């Protein structure tokens, strides 16, 4: 691999951002294609790096651009690392991202903020690439904060909508909690090792230079960052609200790439997490809980994008189950497949929303199968893929995780995962039936969308069909082999590949659950032999809880937001105006008092000054004489 690859991959989207930010208003609609071209060019270079690197040994390309921080014994380079793991992410960011850019040209065509939109999108792609290409934790943190900023800007893209502004702020605040975690992890590493480069840190851990306590805390703080960015329970509440942003943003940032940054971080820092068994256990458990928790909520939502948002949470739960159990390659595999089918689902939902005139409530959709055949077909593929029906992509990746979990003895997590697979099929088929089947219940005139929409949909649909063949249970496992050089450098990275244990038990059961979910959805929403209201009445309390998202937002409101507001009011009204302002005012009044007193000395009479001067002189003389 050659050095210029990494420069080109990283800087092309930045150039796109700068050009769009400076000249976008003059370019008009062309700004969209400029931004798209920048990302696609970056993808071409990534693909070139992939193709030339895969032939022989997939090398890793470490480049130091310059020394960024040099203070005392700590020197932190601005460096990049292009290796199989970061390249997989770079390919998804620029590839799936490029498709979403193409799609956005259609979706945002009538929006006058189009140049600004593409400037933000390019900025996001640059920041995300910086995140995955960083060769140390500090540069990673820059990208980490950068994607948070881009996410904030894009969620609040329609800044005249109060709900969008609130959602953007919420996303930003929750993400800053995570950023703080990563910063603390950075401080721990600098204090204990004096280095934050990946190779330095991982080498020190392999050589047992860090105490287990420090490792656990570092891992916990890194996980806090991942938890916020990847919306793991209980820091998940910002992601469903983030659906206020334009749909391509939801597809790119809040499904395919940014929310998987947490998975990337855990995979990248696997030597830390491998050594931190307590935190890894927590990662596994919270991932498992998030998976089923979000799936249950998804069942009850009526906003098409919110269902997909909770579905994303649930799938991220699967990825964290994988990395928590040490199945790093499986986590990357599911990330990759999820990027394909979830981007497809969001883009499909965007096409539907576009076609029905901005309506997002599924109760006002229906029957769109006939009006939008291409969208329907691709959406069906994505639904089957996420439901885990063979031979679609989701089957291979999800069942690699579940199978490995069962075989490595995580039985409870496996059971939850399989049940979640059934729920996934249920809520996705519910969405499909409500949207595309039955009679149209809205009042717009739905129509098929143009080729700018359908071409990205078709490409992603093909990927959702064939993507899974990267790893076949009992067959080959291209992905693990490709990632092997990275995951094999330090202990704990390489997991038993799917090849090693051709055991079909887990796969058969989870597919059975998925089919059961589909059958149930079919009975409830297509054949209507089982009214959804009967289930609702059968579990009234549970339904209420799920429909209200288990009152997590309300809990935050009671535990965090309101006490914070109360504290703010006390500090503002009492402490600030009373004590701080009081002290300032006391100083001011005192100064005036003292000034008024000594004012008498400055009466303006020169003769009195002379007298004072003379008296003073005499006093000095007297003092000197009598001493």
């Amino acid at each position, binding site marked *: 691999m050659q050095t210029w690859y990494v420069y080109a991959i990283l800087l092309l989207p930045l150039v796109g951002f700068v050009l769009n930010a400076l000249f976008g208003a003059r370019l008009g609609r062309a700004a969209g294609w400029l931004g798209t071209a920048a990302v696609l060019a970056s993808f071409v270079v990534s693909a070139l790096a992939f193709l030339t690197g895969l032939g022989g040994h997939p090398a890793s390309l470490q480049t130091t651009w310059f020394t960024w921080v040099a203070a005392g014994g700590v020197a932190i380079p601005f460096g990049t690392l292009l290796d199989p793991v970061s390249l997989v992410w770079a390919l998804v960011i620029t590839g799936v991202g490029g498709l979403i850019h193409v799609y956005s040209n259609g979706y945002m065509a009538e929006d006058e903020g189009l140049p600004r939109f593409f400037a933000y999108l390019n900025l996001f792609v640059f920041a995300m690439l910086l995140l995955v290409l960083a060769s140390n934790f500090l540069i990673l943190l820059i990208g980490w904060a950068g994607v948070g900023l881009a996410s904030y800007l894009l969620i609040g893209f329609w800044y005249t909508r109060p709900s969008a502004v609130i959602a953007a702020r919420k996303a930003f605040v929750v993400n800053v909690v995570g950023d703080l975690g990563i910063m603390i992890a950075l401080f721990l590493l600098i204090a204990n090792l004096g280095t934050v480069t990946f190779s330095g840190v991982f080498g020190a851990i392999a050589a047992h230079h860090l105490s287990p306590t420090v490792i656990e805390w570092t891992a916990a703080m890194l996980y806090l960052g991942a938890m916020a960015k990847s919306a793991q329970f209980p820091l998940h509440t910002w992601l469903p609200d983030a659906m206020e942003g334009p749909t391509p943003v939801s597809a790119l940032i809040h499904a395919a790439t940014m929310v998987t940054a947490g998975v990337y971080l855990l995979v990248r820092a696997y030597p830390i997490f491998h050594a931190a068994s307590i935190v890894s256990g927590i990662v596994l458990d919270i991932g498992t809980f998030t998976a089923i928790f979000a799936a249950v909520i998804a069942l009850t939502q009526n906003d098409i994008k919110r269902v997909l948002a909770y579905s994303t949470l649930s799938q991220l739960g699967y990825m964290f189950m994988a990395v928590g159990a040490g199945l790093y390659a499986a986590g990357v595999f599911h990330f990759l497949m999820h990027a394909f089918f979830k981007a497809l689902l969001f883009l499909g939902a965007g096409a539907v929303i576009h076609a029905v005139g901005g309506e997002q409530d599924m109760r006002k959709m229906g029957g769109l199968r006939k009006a939008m055949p291409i969208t329907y077909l691709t959406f069906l593929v994505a639904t089957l893929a996420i439901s885990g029906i063979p031979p679609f992509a989701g089957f291979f990746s999800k069942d690699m995780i579940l199978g490995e979990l069962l075989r490595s003895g995580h039985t409870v997590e496996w059971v939850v995962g399989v049940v979640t697979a059934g729920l996934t099929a249920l809520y996705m088929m519910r969405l499909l039936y409500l949207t595309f089947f039955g009679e149209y219940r809205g009042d717009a005139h739905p129509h098929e969308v143009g080729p700018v929409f359908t071409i990205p949909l078709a490409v992603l649909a093909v990927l959702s069909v064939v993507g899974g063949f990267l790893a076949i249970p009992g067959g080959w496992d291209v992905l693990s082999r490709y990632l092997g050089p990275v995951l094999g450098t330090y202990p704990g990275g390489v997991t038993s590949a799917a090849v090693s244990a051709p055991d079909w038990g887990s796969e058969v059961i989870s597919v059975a659950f998925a089919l059961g979910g589909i059958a149930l959805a079919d009975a409830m929403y297509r054949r209507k032999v089982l009214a959804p209201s009967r289930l609702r009445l059968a579990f009234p309390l549970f339904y209420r809880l799920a429909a209200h998202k288990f009152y997590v937002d309300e809990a935050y409101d009671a535990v965090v937001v309101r006490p914070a507001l109360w504290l703010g009011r006390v500090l503002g009204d009492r402490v600030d105006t009373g004590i701080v302002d009081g002290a300032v005012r006391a100083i001011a009044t005192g100064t005036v008092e003292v*000034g008024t007193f*000594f*004012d008498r*000395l*400055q*009466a*303006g*009479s*020169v*003769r009195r000054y*002379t*007298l004072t001067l*003379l008296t003073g002189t005499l006093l000095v003389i007297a003092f000197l004489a009598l001493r």
Partner: protein
Amino acid sequence: MPEIAVIVLSALLFALGGYGAMARKNPLQMFMAIEMMWNAVNLVFIYFAHRFGDVGGQIFVFVVITVAAAEVAIGLGTVVLAFRGREHLDLDELDSLKG
């Protein structure tokens, strides 16, 4: 002349000047009083320069006279400017800078 006489004369002149500087309201008279104080000091300088045979004292008197001339030049200029358009030469009227 006995030494004590010179010192007493000089002290009297100095005190007289000091009193004049304080008691007068007219800036010109105050200048004259201050001038008297300078010269009281000069007298002592010259006497002791003579007494100890050291010309340093006489040189110092020249310095004092030079400085006094400069001071008068600036002072009179200031007075002319300050009292332009006023009827009386009364320093007590100049109190606009008081605190």
